[in-house]
């Protein structure tokens, strides 16, 4: 039961070596260097998150990471060709593509021309090198994910990513697609950080997709931080289609002002081991959050969704619906925590997580938590785990629908409830099609 880790794992040692090697070459000057150093110290003290850390109980990163890969090199010619083709899951949808390959934002491959008035998109590396005051200010401020060690590693090593700013009152109709891809050719580690600032009364849709080759056990630690001004409207979709051997850790933070509408979908079908953590905080009254998730796993995939919804102030509404479909020996983890701070009265929070186990050997773990310090609130959570409903399947089969098709229909509708949160029709259809492809590939 000792808290401190005496012996460091191989991966922990390699991360420490990597830090010594690259810390002087990472972008950003004085105040940031100290912040990176402090973040690394946090990692050094705690080690990689493991099952002794309550928040990581079901996803033992120390055990999952047998080794830490070296930092990725910027993509070469072949990498650029691959980067151009990345994000195909949303082909046919009208989106503004911003491509981040192997941890580097590629301006020439991105679609940065003709930006709508009030919208700016830049690279984090540029902002850090130039000492952009706003970016530096945000990176220096307390993040809702502050305590997390995986996030601290991201802060220490972050190299590049997108910086998106939407001016107050500006509504951007065309969704922005952040295409993250790993191109190889050898396994490596990627640390990206992106920042999205949405001014008061502004609206934007940000879709991020993550992918890479199946055969490489590359490692991704990515973070996206959203700050929303009063009355902003934000749609965020994260599509996880990492390669079959990839390790993917992602952190999404959202700090919401007053009367914000925030809708988020976390769609995961790829990666060997995936951790998606979301830290959302309501700083102003009247906001509504919908955090939904759809996870489809097979083989020995492991996907963890950990949500912390912090009602720091009253009068907000939060809704979470997470759906997991599990085949083979896969395992899904859902940990959701709703915090209602003292005096956050009139909070309305509901959280639901449902797992559908399609095989004997799949495993679903849920931990939906409530932490409530105010009395005039309505909060609840529900969790279920089980196999496909025999009666429903029988009903469909009795009407002449073959077994597999009946199952497909049922699973599709099960997952559909979560995907419906996506407002953009094109993106929603693309995801529904991805679910269909996954279902058709079932044995």
């Amino acid at each position, binding site marked *: 039961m000792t808290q401190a880790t005496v012996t460091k794992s191989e991966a922990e040692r390699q991360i420490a070596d990597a830090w010594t090697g690259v810390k002087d070459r990472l972008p950003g000057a004085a105040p940031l260097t100290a912040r990176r150093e402090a973040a690394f110290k946090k990692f050094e003290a705690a080690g990689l998150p493991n099952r002794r850390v309550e928040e990581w109980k079901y996803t033992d990163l120390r055990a999952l990471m047998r080794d830490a890969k070296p930092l990725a090199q910027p993509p070469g010619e072949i990498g650029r060709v691959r980067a151009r083709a990345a994000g195909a899951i949303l082909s046919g949808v009208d989106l503004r593509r911003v491509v981040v390959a192997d941890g580097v934002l590629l301006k020439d491959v991105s679609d940065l021309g003709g930006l709508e008035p009030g919208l700016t998109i830049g690279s984090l590396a540029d902002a850090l090198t130039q000492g952009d005051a706003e970016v530096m200010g945000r990176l220096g401020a307390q993040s809702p994910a502050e305590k997390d060690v995986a996030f601290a590693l991201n802060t220490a090593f972050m190299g590049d990513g997108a910086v998106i700013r939407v001016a107050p009152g500006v509504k951007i109709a065309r969704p922005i697609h952040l295409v993250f891809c790993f191109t190889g050719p050898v396994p490596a580690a990627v640390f990206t950080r992106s920042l999205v600032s949405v001014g008061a009364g502004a609206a934007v849709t940000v879709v991020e997709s993550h992918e890479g080759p199946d055969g490489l056990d590359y490692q991704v630690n990515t973070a996206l931080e959203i700050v929303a001004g009063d009355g902003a409207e934000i749609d965020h979709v994260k599509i996880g289609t990492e390669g079959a051997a990839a390790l993917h850790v992602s952190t999404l933070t959202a700090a919401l002002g007053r009367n914000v509408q925030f809708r988020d979908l976390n769609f995961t079908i790829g990666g060997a081991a995936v951790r998606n953590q979301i830290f959302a905080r309501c700083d102003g009254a009247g906001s509504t959050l919908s955090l939904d998730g759809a996870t489809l796993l097979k083989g020995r995939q492991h996907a963890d969704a950990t949500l912390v919804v912090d009602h720091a102030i009253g009068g907000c509404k939060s809704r979470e619906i997470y759906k997991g479909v599990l085949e083979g020996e896969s395992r899904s983890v859902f940990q959701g925590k709703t915090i209602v701070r003292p005096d956050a009265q009139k909070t309305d929070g509901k959280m639901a997580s449902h797992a559908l186990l399609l095989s004997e050997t799949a495993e679903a773990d849920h931990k939906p938590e409530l932490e*409530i310090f105010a009395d005039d609130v309505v*909060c609840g959570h529900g969790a279920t785990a089980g196999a496909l409903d025999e009666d429903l399947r029988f009903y469909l089969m009795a009407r002449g629908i073959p077994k597999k098709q009946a199952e497909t229909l049922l699973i599709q509708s099960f997952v559909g409830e979560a995907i419906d949160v996506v407002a953009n029709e094109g993106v929603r259809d693309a995801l529904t099609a991805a679910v269909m492809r996954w279902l058709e590939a079932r044995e």
Partner: protein
Amino acid sequence: MPAVQETVEQVRSIDVDQYKYGFETDIETEKAPKGLSEDTVRFISAKKEEPAWMLEWRLEAFRRWLTMDEPTWARVDYPKIDYQNAYYYAAPKAFVAPKSLDEVDPEILKTYEKLGIPLREREILAGVVRPEGSSRVAVDAVFDSVSVATTFKEELKKAGVIFMPISEAIREHPELVQKYLGSVVPVSDNFFATLNSAVFSDGSFVYIPPGVRCPMELSTYFRINERNTGQFERTLIIADKGSYVSYLEGCTAPRRDENQLHAAVVELIAHDDAEIKYSTVQNWYPGDAEGKGGIFNFVTKRGDCRGARSKISWTQVETGSAITWKYPSCILRGDGSRGEFYSIAISNGRQQVDSGTKMIHLGKNTTSRIISKGIAAGRSDNTYRGLVSAHRKATGARNFTNCDSLLIGPHCGAHTVPYIEAKNSSALFEHEATTSKISEDMLFYCRQRGLSQEEAVALVVNGFVKDVLQHLPMEFAVEAQKLISISLEGSVG
């Protein structure tokens, strides 16, 4: 609206400061030397005239305990316990196992009388002292570290039921004790259970032979009296094939400024087709309104549904203790076995409750049901922490969990931390939890029909806890209802 005079008085009479079991009995006691060492363990073992194997068992536990750290994961916050600054054994002086009640110190008898615990069979048989309940209850009274009286022993013996202090059972039925002790809660289970294994002094032992339905309710009444003393009791209940037993447990302690430690272990074993119903009304001294004093209650309770179609049901009403750390659990090992957990946890003042259950489904077609109602008032924190898990082979496992919290007042906290782990696709788990304050609509509806504000609140809260109360045996239901009206009335105003 202003409270009516009657309510104000009722509230006053039941506020945490008005803990009515807070009196102290002045009695000479013999104690073990202060502190905890191998010598303390040997002292207790010698006092109990235990066989060598028992001492060895205790010493092994003690050595193990020295290597363990106190757990910190629960949502409770208390000053560090100095384990060397307490007595681990306290017995009324010149205590020899009494042959009849006449030999028991009259002061002790008076204490139990004050607590309303009937120890005199005559009176019970005559129905004098318990007008509200018609059924008879056999009582084992544990005073600090020793069992002072066990009633109805003879009658139970006729049915083949063994009901006696565990210290006696170790001497008289060593084969049963040796077979079952520590088989559900192993010596090294957790910090507090290990401590208990080393220093437990008394508790109840129950064995129900095959096919016997225990002719009466069995009950143990725990009382901590001595200052600076911890109570470590151990309860072991074995229901052999096809038998049935209902067991009740109650507890109180005097009001003191210091904190006292209570670390009990309860082990239940149900064989094929057997059923154990275990009910607790926990009313240890909760400390005063400022959080001074009160019992630290660290309890390990676990039932093992070892046989097919066996059933274990836990019902608890928790109103006392400064700190509650308690997770009565069921290991559903036998095919078709069933576990139930019904709980009402009420916290007021500065109480901290971290309680819940574990339902571990191992066998096929095992079912479990959890109904937990937490009510937080004052400046208290009330946490439900529970685990439901189905292992690979637990085909057809079913669980339904419902944990609701009610908050009364703006300074308390209610928390829910459920763990749901499904490793079998045919397992069906449902979990729901809600937290709310009493809805204005409900109150308005009741008031419209002519109820006063307070009556309306009482009605709503009673409806809220009804699911649990109905599972309490008659004897306790009345007491529990009174306890609930307490916390309720004390908080609404």
